[in-house]
């Protein structure tokens, strides 16, 4: 049973070591007691206020329309391009933030279809990007709530002559109410810790979040004390939100795929609902289409011919695959330990172990990065270890996805075949070879594909420790953007997107194999 705690223990070390580093800030070089007053400065107040304010607005602008869109999808059982549209809504999951940012610049930038000009940079751009990511996510989280309404309830509602309002009040709202707070808080948390979007689209001290402020104080101000104070603040905010989220414990279980969900309940078609879906679909699709057009008409050939680009692409690929392998393995052991505990009736411990996998939501990458920097920079050259650090942090970021994708399948497998395998003495390698692998390779493939795509597109810790020599594609895009080479950045973004989708597809196919009967 000791193995049950192995992965959680490793995770705890990874999280606690940096925190210990953060807390030992008194020993930092150049520390003066009056530095602590920084924490009461107007700068901090502004940064905290902006972090919360942009997260709040992003959440409202993402989830409120998502309710309308999810409802429209749920009530329109079939219409042309329904599954294609749902697929588009799965896409932002594997679209790197920098790519989305380039797409948004391409639509709303000064040369775009809907030019916002200079005012794109700042809260407007941040909101546009956050809605691009979180509206589809919220739709996919909310849609199962409608699908959870029993078929017979719809039939009864029809029999009793419910109007649209009655259906909403007696069927839909009660179902929605269960999951809505969880979805709201999750989106809030994601926006609160969002880094790449704010880094690229935020401008100046007026629109800086804690996450970006940490980066700036380490990277530009060379002020670890300030970074540590910011990191501790960010940590406390995240813990606060996470505690509320856990109290609710109502986050709907959703299978994360980019294929379309099946089994719709209602058949209440209306033109308005289709318009809602179409508008949302255009909103999500437009940046990608615009990016494609801009990149193809831009200096794509020149960018592709650059050797430096392909070196970056190679590093990106290596980081993605490394994170995928590490994350899936960690998830496998974590889930195995958790389900063994659950089988023994120790449900609390089982849940606790699974929660360990989501620790990254509470301790965001930049906080871990700061901790690593503070703790290890005296002993090793953290810039030389950048790949190892990035792989580990990205694997941790992928872990919640692995647990959500692989968890349900593993639990089902365990429930159905546990006794049978015990009685046949199928264990260890034999059990893996004949039972687990054939039955679980699909979710394993999907998890690996997801983590690889996420890690390849991540601009987080790599921004903190990366140098021009170690740049990955996302960092390269950021550097191009910083040098106002927007056409080049757009072309690179298209290549990164293509690479992510390709790796996603290849991993899902190669590992997942064909469907089993």
């Amino acid at each position, binding site marked *: 049973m000791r193995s049950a705690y192995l992965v959680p223990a490793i995770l705890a070390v990874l999280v606690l070591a940096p925190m210990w580093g953060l807390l030992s800030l008194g020993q930092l070089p150049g520390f003066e007691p009056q530095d602590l007053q920084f924490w009461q400065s107007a700068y901090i107040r502004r940064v905290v206020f902006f972090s919360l304010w942009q997260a709040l607005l992003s959440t409202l602008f993402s989830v409120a329309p998502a309710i309308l869109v999810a409802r429209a999808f749920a009530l329109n059982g079939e219409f042309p391009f329904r599954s294609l549209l749902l697929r588009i809504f799965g896409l932002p999951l594997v679209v790197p933030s920098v790519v989305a940012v380039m797409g948004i610049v391409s639509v709303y930038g000064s040369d775009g279809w809907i030019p916002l000009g200079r005012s794109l940079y700042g809260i407007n751009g941040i909101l546009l990007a956050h809605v691009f990511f979180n509206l589809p996510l919220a739709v996919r989280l909310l849609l199962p709530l409608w699908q959870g309404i029993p078929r017979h309830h719809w039939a009864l509602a029809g029999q009793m002559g419910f109007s649209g309002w009655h259906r909403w009040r007696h069927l839909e709202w009660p179902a929605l109410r269960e999951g809505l707070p969880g979805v709201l808080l999750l989106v809030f948390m994601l926006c609160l810790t969002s880094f790449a979007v704010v880094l690229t689209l935020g401008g100046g001290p007026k629109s800086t979040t804690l996450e970006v402020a940490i980066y700036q104080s380490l990277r530009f101000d060379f002020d670890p004390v300030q970074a540590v104070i910011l990191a501790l603040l960010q940590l406390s905010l995240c813990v606060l939100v996470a505690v509320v989220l856990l109290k609710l414990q109502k986050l709907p279980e959703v299978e994360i795929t980019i294929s379309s969900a099946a089994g719709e309940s209602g058949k209440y078609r209306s033109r308005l609902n289709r318009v809602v879906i179409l508008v949302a679909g255009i909103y999500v699709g437009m940046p990608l289409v615009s990016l494609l057009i801009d990149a193809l008409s831009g200096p794509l050939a020149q960018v592709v011919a650059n050797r430096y680009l392909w070196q970056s692409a190679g590093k990106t690929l290596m980081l993605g695959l490394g994170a995928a392998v590490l994350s899936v393995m960690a998830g496998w052991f974590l889930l195995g330990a958790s389900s063994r505990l659950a089988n023994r009736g120790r449900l609390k411990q089982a849940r606790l172990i699974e929660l360990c996998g989501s620790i990254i939501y509470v301790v965001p990458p930049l906080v871990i990065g700061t901790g690593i920097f503070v703790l290890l920079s005296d002993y090793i050259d953290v810039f030389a270890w950048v790949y190892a650090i990035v792989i580990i942090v990205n694997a941790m970021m992928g872990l919640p996805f692995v647990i959500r994708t692989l968890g349900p399948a593993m639990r089902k497998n365990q429930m159905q075949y546990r006794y049978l395998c015990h009685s046949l003495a199928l264990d260890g390698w034999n059990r893996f070879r004949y039972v687990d692998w054939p039955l679980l390779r699909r979710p394993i493939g999907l998890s690996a594909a997801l983590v690889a795509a996420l890690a390849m597109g991540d601009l987080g810790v790599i921004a903190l420790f990366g140098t021009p020599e170690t740049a990955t594609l996302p960092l390269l895009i950021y550097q191009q953007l910083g040098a106002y080479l927007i056409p080049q950045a757009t072309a690179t973004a298209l290549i990164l997107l293509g690479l992510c989708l390709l790796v996603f597809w290849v991993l899902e196919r190669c590992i997942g194999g064909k469907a*089993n009967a």
Partner: protein
Amino acid sequence: MAKPMLEIEQLCYRFPGGGPEKMQFDLSVSAGEVLSLIGPSGSGKSTLLNLIAGFLEPESGRIRVNGEAIEQLPIAQRPVTIVFQQHNLFPHLDLYTNVALGINPSLKLSLEQDQLIEDALDSLGLSGLEKRKPGQLSGGQRQRIALARALVRERKLLLLDEAFAALGPALREELIELVKVLVQRKKMAALLVSHQPRDALIASDRTAFVQDGRILALQPTRQLLEKPDLVEVRSYLGSL
């Protein structure tokens, strides 16, 4: 009368996390006998089978097979083989492999063992289906395969945990008759958990009535079902 093949003495079990009160079982079954267990759902019938198979750990008590205590043995080493109501077969493996796993989990079989599988499939009317996948079979055929695997494992004790509950009456009767023949031929002992009193009538000379984690009555089946003297049995059966 010969010494019973399976003896259960004061076998106690309590569900983790409190729950209903302690269960306690006493029972014996002789070679060649199929003993039925009936009773309301949640009464402890399946729990008893799970304790014998080793899936659950008893608090105290003895389980003997041919006089030897087995309650300390690891699951796979117990002289026991079990057939569930569903999920007996792995859907992605063909029938031959599903049966062969019962002999050796690493699938390295001798020629004699190969022959054993062929004979078992033959005796259950399944020859020629070796390469099929479980999904291509009817529910009755799937349970026959599960039985075939139980047979090739050559264990003394056969546990049927509502193994035929999902099948229609005629098919159930057919398979129960088959089990009776096989149990006698192989000198095994069998426990049959069922929700259908009719199954007990077909399968067993003796039937045990289980409620609240105890065996309240162990009588000749006909007497138990047709002239029940316990009020619990009468209320379980309803008016017959």
